C-alpha cells in the first residue's frame, strides 16, 4: 500500500472553493482562506466582504493600479469590482453579526467535536492579545467553514474533544477542510465526508483526538496539482 499524500495549502483552498455556489456572499479570513478566491469557478458570481468596510472586493491590483485607500482586513492592497460598495465598521459588523453573509471561511488552531473554534489566541501571555473580527465572523454566520492542517507541525491533533486554546466561539464550525479530510460538524458528531487517497479511516482517527464517524457515502478527497 502506497503512502498517502496530504494536500498542500493551495489544494485545501481549491477544495473549499468547490463548495461555493453562484451568488454567494463570502468573507475569507486571514491566511489560507484568502487563497480560495483563486479557485472559485469563474462562471459564477461571488461577492467578497471585507470587514474593514467593503463588499465586492476584487483581486490584488496590477502594477501601477495600487491604491493605498483600497485595503482588505489583512491590510493588503486590493481592488473593488463593479457593484461593490463602501460602508462604515458599524454596518460592516451588522452584516456579519446579523447573519447576512452566506459563508465564512477561516483558518483555525483547533476545532472541537462540537464545532467550537479556537483561532485567535494560543494563550501565549507574551503576545499582545488581538482578536480583531474573529469572534464576530463566527457568531453571525450559519455556515462557517474551517481550513487548517489536520495536525500541528509536531504532529499533534488539532481536531480535539475540547479546544485547549482560548475559544473564539462555541459551536461555530459547520465543515472542516484539512490536508487529509473533509469533515462535517453534525449533531451526531464529526462526520468524515472525504479522505485523501491511501489514508484509511483508522489512521485518520489516530491523527484526531475527537471521535470521527465515517459517512457511508464517503469519497476520496482529490485536488488538482497546484
Amino acid at each position, binding site marked *: 500500500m502506497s503512502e498517502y499524500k496530504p494536500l498542500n495549502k493551495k489544494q485545501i483552498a481549491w477544495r473549499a472553493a468547490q463548495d461555493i455556489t453562484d451568488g454567494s456572499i463570502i468573507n475569507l479570513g486571514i491566511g489560507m482562506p484568502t487563497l480560495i478566491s483563486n479557485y472559485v469557478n469563474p462562471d459564477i458570481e461571488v461577492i467578497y466582504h471585507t470587514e474593514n468596510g467593503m463588499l465586492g472586493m476584487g483581486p490584488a491590483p496590477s502594477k501601477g493600479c*495600487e491604491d*493605498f485607500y483600497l485595503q482588505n482586513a489583512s491590510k493588503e492592497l486590493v481592488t473593488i469590482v463593479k457593484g461593490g460598495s463602501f460602508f*462604515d*465598521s458599524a454596518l460592516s*459588523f451588522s452584516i456579519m453579526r446579523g447573519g447576512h453573509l452566506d459563508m465564512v471561511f477561516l483558518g483555525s488552531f483547533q476545532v472541537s467535536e462540537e464545532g*467550537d473554534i479556537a483561532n485567535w489566541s494560543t494563550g501565549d501571555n507574551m503576545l*499582545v492579545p*488581538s482578536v*480583531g473580527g474573529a*469572534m464576530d465572523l463566527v457568531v453571525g454566520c450559519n455556515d462557517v467553514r474551517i481550513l487548517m492542517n489536520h495536525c500541528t507541525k509536531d504532529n499533534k491533533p488539532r481536531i480535539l474533544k475540547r479546544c485547549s486554546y482560548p475559544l473564539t466561539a462555541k459551536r461555530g464550525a459547520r465543515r472542516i477542510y484539512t490536508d487529509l479530510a473533509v469533515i462535517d460538524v453534525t449533531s451526531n458528531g464529526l462526520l468524515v465526508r472525504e479522505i485523501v487517497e491511501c489514508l484509511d479511516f483508522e489512521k485518520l482517527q489516530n491523527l484526531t483526538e475527537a471521535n470521527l464517524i465515517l459517512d457511508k457515502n464517503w469519497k476520496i478527497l482529490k485536488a488538482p496539482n497546484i
Partner: protein
Amino acid sequence: MINKCIYKTRDIKKGIKSGSTILVGGFGECGVPLELIDALIESDITDLAIASNNAGVADRGVAKLLKAGKVKKIIGSYPRSIDSYVVEELYKKNLIKLEIVPQGTFVERIRAAGAGLGGFYTPVGVGTMLAEGKEAKIIDGKEYILEKPLKGDVALIKAYKADRWGNLIYKKTARNFNPIMATAADLVIAEVDEIVELGELNPEEIVTPGVFIDRVYQCKKNYDDLLHNIYVSRHRNN
C-alpha cells in the same frame, strides 16, 4: 456664521486634557488622523486612554503616540500588527493596560455612546474569555452578554472632504470607524484632505452630518504619499 475650520496646528489641542479618553479613527493605517496625533505628541497632554482598533505600525500613528509615552491604556480589537514593536515592548514591560474587545463589539459600543443608549446585548464573545466579568442574559432562548457604551472625551477622526459646517465624506476603506467615532465624543476633531465650499457636498452623499463635528483641520503634511509608497512596495514584494 458657523465655521468649524481651524487653520493653526496649535488650535488642535485646545481643550484636550491629560487623562482623557480619546477615540482615534482608522483601520490599520488607513483612515488614521496622523496630523492630529502629531499635535498631541507635540503638546504636554499625556496619560491618555486611546480607543483605536489597532495600535499603529512601526513608529507611525498610534505607535508614535505610544512611543512618546503619552498613553496609559489601549482599548481596541487588534493592537498587534506586522510591525507593532512599540506596543509589544510596552506590554511586555507591563507599562500599558490593554482592553481587548471583539471588533464588532468595539464599534457597537462606540455607536451606543453616540446614540444615547445605555448598553446592548450581543452574542459575540459568549462562552469565551472575553465574556468574563460581563453580565449574561438569555433572550428568546439565546445567550447574550451586556456591553456598555464607549464614549470619548475626544474623538480624532480622518475624512476626505469637509465644509465649514463640518459635513464629511470619506475615501474608500478609510471610512471604517471614523463616522461612528464622530458621533461619540464631547469634542470631535476631523482631519481632512480638503475643505470645500458649503453646498459643494451632495446632501445625499454626506456620510457624517456636521452636527457631530466641532473642528475641521486640513492636512498640511504629506503622509499619504509616504504610506502609499510603503504599501505599494510591500505589495510588489509579496
